[in-house]
């Protein structure tokens, strides 16, 4: 909920998220988190969700950690930590994530 204007922003950007059932929200969150885990692990990073909030703790290979508030903030936080951008089209990243 945005405290400035009482709009439910939610982890899924408002309207589509708000109109999902709790079960659907749980399923979406599970699949979204699985994606984050696969993607970050292919950069040797790990990610964990902080309690029931939509915040995440990112841990780098050297033990460095940082908090991302919301899934969309994971990319800039990762970039700040690692000095590089997440690239879902990088063939090496795809290969590592697929376990090939």
């Amino acid at each position, binding site marked *: 909920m945005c405290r400035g204007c009482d709009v439910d922003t939610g982890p899924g950007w408002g309207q589509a998220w708000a109109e999902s059932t709790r079960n*659907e929200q749980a399923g979406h969150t599970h699949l979204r988190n699985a994606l*984050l*885990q696969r993607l970050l692990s292919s950069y040797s990073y790990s990610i964990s969700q902080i309690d029931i909030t939509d915040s995440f703790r990112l841990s780098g290979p050297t033990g460095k950690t940082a908090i991302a508030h919301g899934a969309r903030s994971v990319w800039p936080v990762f970039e700040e930590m690692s000095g590089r951008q997440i690239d*879902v089209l990088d063939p090496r990243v795809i290969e590592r994530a697929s376990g090939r």
Partner: protein
Amino acid sequence: MASVVKPIILVTGALGSGKTSGLGALIAHFGYSSPRVLINDVGQVNDEIRFESSAGTYAAETIGGGCACCERSDEFLGRLLALLDDTSSAFDVIIFEASGVADPAAVVRLISEHPKLSHHIEASNHVHYVDATSTEGLLACDVALAETCVIAKSDLVSPGEIDELSAEMRSWNPHMKLLVQDVVDEHVRVLPAPPAAPDPVPAGSSSAPIALAEASRSERADVHVADFSLPTGLSWLALATWATALLARHGDRVLRLKASVPSGQQRVVLNGVRHTLFPPRSLENTEPRSTRGTLTVISTTQDVGLLLDSLQVFVDPAIEATHPVLVPAE
């Protein structure tokens, strides 16, 4: 500030392409009755412009002396905030006519990244005007970025030329809405263009993995269009998260991304332009429950194979069962 979301229609097109003269007809075509109109020009403009539609006469506010996507962005955002705070008059849509040189992606980014406007204004449509009599400078990426294109001054060229222009524009953006604008008895009209091929119907069983449905490349411009077919169990939230990563890294070459994902009784629509993914919207699902979803990516580079591999590895629900999921923090 009211806690409702108002649509904004972004109108772009080159100087003299017929944007301002067509505004009244465009508003009538979309069925809005109480628009608030903002017109931006890089030069000095009158404080107020009046225009007519079949539903009435409207006044437009103006922002002159610079482009709203850059040097006059503060004034543009301030005007939008003032419109939302103005409780004296109800309105059902904001029409923003950008200057002829504006970057439409920059305009939508200004709104989507604003801490308040992003919650109250939704970039529901981007209408791009193309002058049928002057197509030499026509840019494929301008057409690819738009949700709707209007071929203006269509009465000044032959039907064959309109067909040729329509076909070329559709090769750059196959799923856009295409309209033609003409003048009859001094009245501007906006009509649907002759129909194109129907949107792709995803084939295959509903749970089959993500697949490439169709890929094409424009002959004249370096624009690639890839249509993917999505399984019914796919999470729109996972796809949207993947899309934000794609656009953050490749928004310089991904012009547009559009998806329709079945989700229970709803279909969730994702819309992305350049680096921006708009808030996903859910619509009533009028398709059979077994109908697969669709994803279209329009880009300036040939990445179809990588896009498919990436979607299959990161988004397809089938792979989730074989990979560990995120664990709670200590």
